[in-house]
């Protein structure tokens, strides 16, 4: 359709939504954009950690044997990936790759970019649902997937077979998993960066049991991100609900919830978290997330309550009420969207804080001992006074927290109308 110059162009009444303004403002802040890129890179590192480093060879042929795919075969092995976080991320890894393939196929069959976007949005919805179902199912034991044989040290075998006819071994870029300890523990113990053991090259050195520090570092990303995101998701949910109820209902409900918040606030947060974890005798990272969630929701709740009290008296609420809408509907559909912006900013800083809390717990020896976390590495480094074990996780924590804080700063400025550029 070509525009007719005699008909005046219809003025664009649509205007701009709060979010698109915020997005545009956010993009103007280069540090924040870099922070976001960094966080995205972390996410990809967490998802694709096994592609970067794994103790299992991608391709394997023993002399006289047939070609095997140990990496793929053990991807969902419960004995090899002993904690749920790893299995979840492994699933996510395949999900992301398959999604890329779907995108590629869509690009080939649909040439119009707008239609393609719409179609891929449709597909994405079903796809996310499918992956979520798989993730839940994966939590239960699926016998077919877990044909586990005994643990094989492929490095050991590779050494004995090396140079023999018909032997093939293709390892990942970093040929170490996060758990594989060196059989020569006393020799490979606490070697500095650039150490070459009989098993391979350790770019960032080795740990107290001869594990590769780089592998531990990369897998630690999974733990940090999981704890950060899920703990914040837990407490934002609680905070939104509690704050919304307190702010909208007022009266006795408000008083009770505010007292509860005051009670939680008056015990130092870290102390409360420590108490919950120690007394419940459960140091899994899920307990840590729940503990952070229980302690952390107060800030969000107070924020939301403040916003609600401000919004409550406004005309649009009265209008909605006169239309006969139910309280819940007014609360969640009309008032809540106005209170979301400060919550998002606060949640971004909260992710950084939750990552710090998790590392602090592991550092104090109260973290999950079964997962490779940064705080735990730092604790080892401090106990044995080894520079590389202090610096490597230290820099990782610092960078992650900095990037998240940059994103948070950027978001806060972008959503503040006074600071618009």
């Amino acid at each position, binding site marked *: 359709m070509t525009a007719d110059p005699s008909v005046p162009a219809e003025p664009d009444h649509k205007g701009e939504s709060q979010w698109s303004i915020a997005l545009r403002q956010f993009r103007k802040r280069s540090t924040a954009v870099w922070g976001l890129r960094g966080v995205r890179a972390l996410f990809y590192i967490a998802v694709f950690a096994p592609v970067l480093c794994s103790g299992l060879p991608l391709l394997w042929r023993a002399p006289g044997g047939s070609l095997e795919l140990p990496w793929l075969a053990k991807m969902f092995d419960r004995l090899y990936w002993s904690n749920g976080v790893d299995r979840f991320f492994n699933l996510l890894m395949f999900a992301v790759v398959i999604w890329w393939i779907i995108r590629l196929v869509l690009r080939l069959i649909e040439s119009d970019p707008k239609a393609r976007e719409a179609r891929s949005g449709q597909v994405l919805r079903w796809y996310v649902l499918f992956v979520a179902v798989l993730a839940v199912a994966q939590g239960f034991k699926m016998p077919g997937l877990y044909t586990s044989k005994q643990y094989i040290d492929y490095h050991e075998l590779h050494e004995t077979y090396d140079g023999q006819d018909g032997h093939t071994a293709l390892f990942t870029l970093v040929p170490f998993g996060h758990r594989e300890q060196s059989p020569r523990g006393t020799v490979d113990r606490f070697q500095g960066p650039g150490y070459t053991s009989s098993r391979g090259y350790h770019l960032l050195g080795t740990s107290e049991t001869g594990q590769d520090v780089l592998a531990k570092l990369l897998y630690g990303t999974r733990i940090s991100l999981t704890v950060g995101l899920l703990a914040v998701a837990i407490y934002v949910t609680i905070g939104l609900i509690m704050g919304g109820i307190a702010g909208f209902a007022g009266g006795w409900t408000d008083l009770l919830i505010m007292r509860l918040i005051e009670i939680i606030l008056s015990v130092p947060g870290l102390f409360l978290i420590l108490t919950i974890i120690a007394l419940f005798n459960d140091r899994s990272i899920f307990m840590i997330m729940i503990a952070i969630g229980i302690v952390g929701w107060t800030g969000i709740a107070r924020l939301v309550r403040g916003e609600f009290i401000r919004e409550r008296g406004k005309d649009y609420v009265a209008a909605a009420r006169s239309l006969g809408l139910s309280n819940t509907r007014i609360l969640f559909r009309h008032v809540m969207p106005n209170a979301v912006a400060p919550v998002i900013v606060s949640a971004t800083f909260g992710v950084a804080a939750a990552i710090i809390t998790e590392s602090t717990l592991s550092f104090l020896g109260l973290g999950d001992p079964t997962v490779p976390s940064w705080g735990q590495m730092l604790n080892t480094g401090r106990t044995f006074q080894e520079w590389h074990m202090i610096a490597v996780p*230290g820099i990782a924590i610092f960078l992650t927290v900095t990037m998240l804080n940059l994103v948070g700063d950027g978001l806060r400025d972008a959503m503040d109308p006074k600071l618009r550029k």
Partner: protein
Amino acid sequence: MFSYIIKRVLIMIPTFFGVSMAIWLVMVMAPGRPTSRGGGGGQGAGADPGGKMEGREGRNVSERIFRDQFGLNRPLFWNNWVGLEKAEMQALIRTVLEGKQKHSISDIGEATEALEDFDRYAVPPLLELLEETSGAEQDAVLGWLRASAFQYPPLLQQGKQRSEDELARDRKINLENKRLDSAELNWQPGASEAERNTIVASWKAWWSEKKGSERWTYLDSATERLGLRIGDTQFGKYWKNLLSFDFGKSFKSNEPVTSIILSKMKYSLSLAVPSFLIAWILAVLLGVMGAANHNKPIDQGSAVFLFMLYSIPSFLMGTVLQKWLAVDMGWFPSLRWESVDAHKLNTWEQLKDVLYHLWLPLLCYTYGSLAFISRQARSGMLEVMQSDFVRTAYAKGCSRQRVIWRHAVRNGMMPLITLLGTALPVLLAGSVVIESIFGIPGFGKAMLDAILNKDYNLVMGVALFSSVLTLIGLLIADILYAMVDPRVSYS
């Protein structure tokens, strides 16, 4: 103003009780019973009451003494043991006797633990049962009767001598306990009917002698029974102690919790107070400097620097400084509050020694709050510098110095006052990490150790203490805010 303060203090009281209630509930709900670690090793308890019975699966002696001393063997909210029925007792004893053929292991364990916990409340029904039962069941009833009548002498603080009165009391209790084990009140397994009957008769005599003693007066008085129903519970004892500001004794060292906390505060306060002052003064200066030179290199430089400091968690900073400045460079001591041989030095040298050890922890303590507060101070000042009255001040010819220090700072620092209230919990929480890195035996270290040892009383005391400090901090912040800002009215 005065009435506002009164009101604020009154609001604090329910909050305080809410905190103690919440912490108590966490403790009670927590699975895993406290270990008997450091329970005192059972001074004077001697024999294992009821432990001579075969096939029992219950707690060991020291664990039982421990539970008795700290009241953990009582019911939680409502003591229904006061009117224990003999049928109920009989059912429990049968469960234990019949064993694994008929009952699940958890049922047997529960029955055993219940029988162990009943204490003196089980004596009257057991005496009745003793007459009615026979054979192996009577043997078991006798065992439990002996165990229930047994009295544990109170534990004493480690390393403390017993006074004469306490010794006399312990001697008396031990004598009573010996009597329970004597041939007068016991028969050998497989004793004849006649032998048993004489022993039952002597138990009756024992009971008529003991019935009036203070352990069993509740049998005759309804009010006392009601008091026990409410008061002789974990909940009742906790509140009774709380209202008399008695936090009990540490499970580990058996010292009063209050004195432990107070003795730890000296270390933590000498870290927290100087770092607090330094951080706030520096933060205000940095904030003012940044806002006064807005967007100049000095402002941007300090903003980036503070932002980076803000992103370093204290455990990371502490570890790096300890490794770098103390272990590698040797400029500072890496651990401890004072030198090992500090007691040999005179006061002045001791002070110097402590200061020398204080440098690194102080630095770690300060930088975090400095980074946080100065960011707040800067944004507060920036807002004020754009306001009308600052422009007016410039217009009427005030110098830059005067505008900043006389007009802007007072208003720009207003947001910092609200931060004051949260400064205390932040410092306390920070002390956990820093004190465990640098091996300082302060409040935070005590907190962590108490949690790790499941030293319930100490955890509870520490939590209550820190929450009181926090509440006071919040109160002071509110009052200061009302004093500084005339627009705020609390009427």
